[in-house]
């Protein structure tokens, strides 16, 4: 076992390594590849949507296909692109920022990834197996429960599996952040990205079970004849709406909070100042998370809950503007008096502030329940959430990937190209979505395959589509940048940004055990403290000693594969009960893998002190 960390070569060895890895840095790369791929898929779906809406009465895609495209666009972007890309950032940065050798449960980390991956693949298989889900990403019953074909079944099974992965990931980061911090890394010295990852994980923990239950009920209704949402059998579709949004609203903060944290780190780094109002920022993050659970019904103002419920949820929703505002102003005042370097990550961050603020304003306008009777289910809502999601989450992902790219790959994305990608994306973004506010108010509902001519909606839709093309250009330039950087392969130092936090105190990319010696943290912005008041290096908290590492494992892959197979079985047993065999076989693979995992001792291995001195594993 002691040779496990010897370099293996060859493509298949490399592939096997990635299939079995439990190293958080490699899992980050897996999330990046899969999430990036799904982002492109979701983006292409978005482009098709926009092309269909370029002119009134367009026949570019059929009605049925349009509904599949819009459903898959929303679902893919939220669950298969944004979430995993956020997990990329969390995986690469959180353990390093707190001075840990890995996450608390490396095995579960890998399991989380593979569940997400197979869930996503299952969902997208629907395209090739008779049609994708077509009831919107919100899958409101009874439209979803009565949707013909198997599209919605794929939605249910795919999200169930990938949702389980997310939940596991959330618990993992919680325990990691709580239990694995280096000596001296108190809660109030954690970088904001770590803090917001902590809060996000809490949201995942409490929000996803509601989705799990909702999906089970829908699965039972569609596949096993239950009647939860069927009014003629005493069911009630409002239950689905509640369950979906009890999950769904926290979900949008799950998406944006980690990036709030990231922006805090980036602004502080590139302004050369500590974060203004650190403790207020932490407090605001927690408060947003807390309030996030009490506002879900703002998506249901027109469902008919009555004025009392609507008013309560309207006020609770508005309250979230306060902690968010605290954040906006603290960011501005971090830059105030600083020395701002406009690098590419900073550029995305600086663009985020006004974009997100605008999106937030849209949110507060929506929160005014009475007014939402006009906005709801129109392009005003589409405009709002793309402003916060693209302007907050996607900008953040571009910023974060550029920022941590050197940590992940040891190479630096080209700055010029980065700016070249930024501008078309930024301009295109505003062109696409700003005008949609007005489209909505001028009477264009969302999820419309066609709009009618001569109703004053032409110009707005045309502008919106043109903007989307600009975004595509920006994305493509970013991709070219990635390819060129990888081909050049110029190595950079451990700290290319002159940054402040722990992850920059070790080489890029880090050795697989991260820290040769666990560092001693002496203040907020641990590395900065050493740069200003020490010799620029972290002081070790322990003498050089053996390092205990977990073993790689193929079991997570197998467990997820089993569920993937079972998924098909459950879906198709409606047509032919012999498919139940597939379901049973799949479940058996999963259970058997679990069984193997629990009876086989997994004690890991040690890297010996002597090897560390020789520099084992550092590339």
């Amino acid at each position, binding site marked *: 076992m002691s040779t496990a960390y010897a370099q293996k070569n060859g493509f298949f060895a490399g592939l096997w390594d990635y299939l079995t890895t439990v190293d958080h840095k490699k899992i980050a790369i897996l999330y990046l590849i899969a999430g990036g791929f799904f982002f492109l898929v979701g983006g292409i779906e978005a482009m098709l949507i926009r092309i269909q809406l370029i002119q009134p009465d367009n026949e570019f895609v059929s009605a049925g296909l349009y509904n599949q495209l819009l459903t898959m666009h929303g679902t893919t972007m939220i669950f298969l692109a944004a979430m995993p890309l956020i997990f990329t950032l969390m995986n690469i940065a959180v353990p390093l920022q707190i001075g840990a050798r890995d996450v608390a449960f490396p095995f579960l980390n890998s399991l989380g990834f593979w569940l997400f991956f197979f869930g996503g693949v299952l969902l997208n298989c629907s395209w090739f197996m008779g049609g994708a889900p077509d009831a919107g990403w919100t899958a409101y019953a009874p439209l979803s429960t009565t949707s013909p074909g198997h599209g919605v079944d794929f939605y249910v099974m795919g999200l169930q599996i990938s949702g389980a992965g997310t939940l596991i990931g959330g*618990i993992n980061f919680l*325990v990691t952040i709580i239990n694995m911090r280096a000596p001296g890394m108190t809660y109030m010295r954690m970088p904001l990205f770590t803090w917001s990852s902590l809060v996000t994980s809490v949201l995942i923990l409490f929000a996803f079970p509601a989705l799990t239950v909702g999906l089970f009920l829908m699965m039972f209704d569609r596949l096993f004849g239950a009647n939860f949402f069927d009014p003629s059998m005493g069911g009630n579709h409002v239950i689905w709406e509640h369950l979906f949004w009890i999950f769904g609203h926290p979900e949008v903060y799950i998406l944006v909070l980690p990036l709030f944290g990231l922006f805090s780190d980036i602004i502080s780094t590139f302004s050369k100042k500590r974060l203004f109002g650190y403790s207020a920022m932490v407090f605001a993050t927690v408060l947003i998370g807390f309030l996030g659970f009490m506002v879900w019904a703002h998506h249901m103002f027109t469902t008919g809950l009555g004025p009392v419920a609507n008013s309560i949820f309207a006020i609770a929703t508005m309250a979230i503007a306060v902690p968010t505002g605290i954040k906006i102003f603290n960011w501005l005042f971090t830059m105030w008096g600083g020395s701002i370097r406009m690098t590419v990550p900073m550029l995305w961050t600086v663009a985020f502030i006004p974009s997100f603020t605008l999106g937030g304003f849209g949110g507060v306008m929506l929160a005014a329940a009475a007014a939402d009777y006009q906005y709801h289910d129109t392009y005003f809502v589409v405009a709002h959430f793309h402003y916060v999601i693209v302007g907050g989450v996607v900008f953040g992902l571009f910023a974060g990937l550029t920022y941590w790219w050197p940590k992940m790959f040891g190479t630096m994305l080209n700055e010029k190209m980065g700016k070249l990608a930024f501008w078309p994306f930024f301009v295109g973004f505003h062109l696409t979505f700003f005008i949609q506010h007005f489209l909505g108010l001028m009477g264009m509902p969302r999820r419309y395959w066609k709009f009618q001519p001569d109703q004053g909606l032409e110009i707005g839709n045309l502008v919106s589509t043109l903007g989307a093309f600009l975004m595509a250009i920006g994305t493509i330039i970013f991709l070219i940048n990635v390819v060129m950087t990888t081909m050049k392969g110029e190595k950079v130092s451990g700290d290319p940004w002159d940054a402040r936090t722990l992850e920059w105190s070790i080489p890029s990319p880090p050795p697989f055990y991260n820290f040769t010696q666990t560092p001693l943290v002496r203040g907020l912005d641990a590395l900065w403290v050493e740069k200003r008041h020490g010799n620029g290096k972290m002081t070790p908290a322990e003498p050089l000693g053996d390092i205990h590492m977990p073993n790689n494992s193929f079991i997570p892959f197998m467990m997820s594969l089993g569920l993937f197979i079972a998924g098909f079985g459950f879906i198709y047993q409606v047509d032919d009960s012999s498919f139940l065999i597939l379901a049973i076989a799949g479940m058996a693979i999963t259970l058997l893998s679990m069984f193997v995992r629990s009876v086989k*001792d997994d004690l890991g291995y040690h890297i010996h002190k002597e090897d560390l001195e020789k520099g084992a594993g550092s590339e």
Partner: protein
Amino acid sequence: MSAEELKQLKPGQSPHEPEKATLEGKNKFLGFWFFLGGETVLFASLFGTYLALKDSNLDGKPAEELFGLELVFIMTMILLTSSLTSVYAIYHMKNLDFQKMQLWMGITVLLGLSFLGLEIFEFYEYVHHDGHTFTSSAFGSAFYTLVGFHGAHVAFGLLWIVTLIIRNARRGLNLYNAPKYYVASLYWHFIDVVWVFIFTVVYLMGKVG
């Protein structure tokens, strides 16, 4: 540390909290409690759904007529007792007395099995005597889903504990498996916690009407 973890622990030795003596154990302990926090929301969603649909029985029997309390009472007593027996198991674990721990875990499993058997019998009766099925009305769907989810938890818990008992029968207690036993017992208690609400909210309140 790894080889050390497998060293058998004997009565009279330290540590007195073997489940939390290693970092892995501490992680497991914390992670599992968090998981239970999530499970709380999961069951709340099921309870909520049940409460919303409990009167949607269409032409089927309403809850008052359907439920009998004798069986539920017996099941409750069995499950409560099994909670106590697993407490005994952990008590002996803390004294590093492996044999007794295994014994009490075994008793817990037997009680769990009889609970599950009675539950299956109960469902059978409902389906065959009362025509109360999963598909007969929204009430049926909600009832079987809530109680069935609990039953599935029981079944999974049994598989888990049995695996632990058999796997470790020969090698005794050590720092590697102590957290596993501890966490399994937490899980078992949680199942009991859920049952307390099920017998109160579903059966007793159903009977009251």
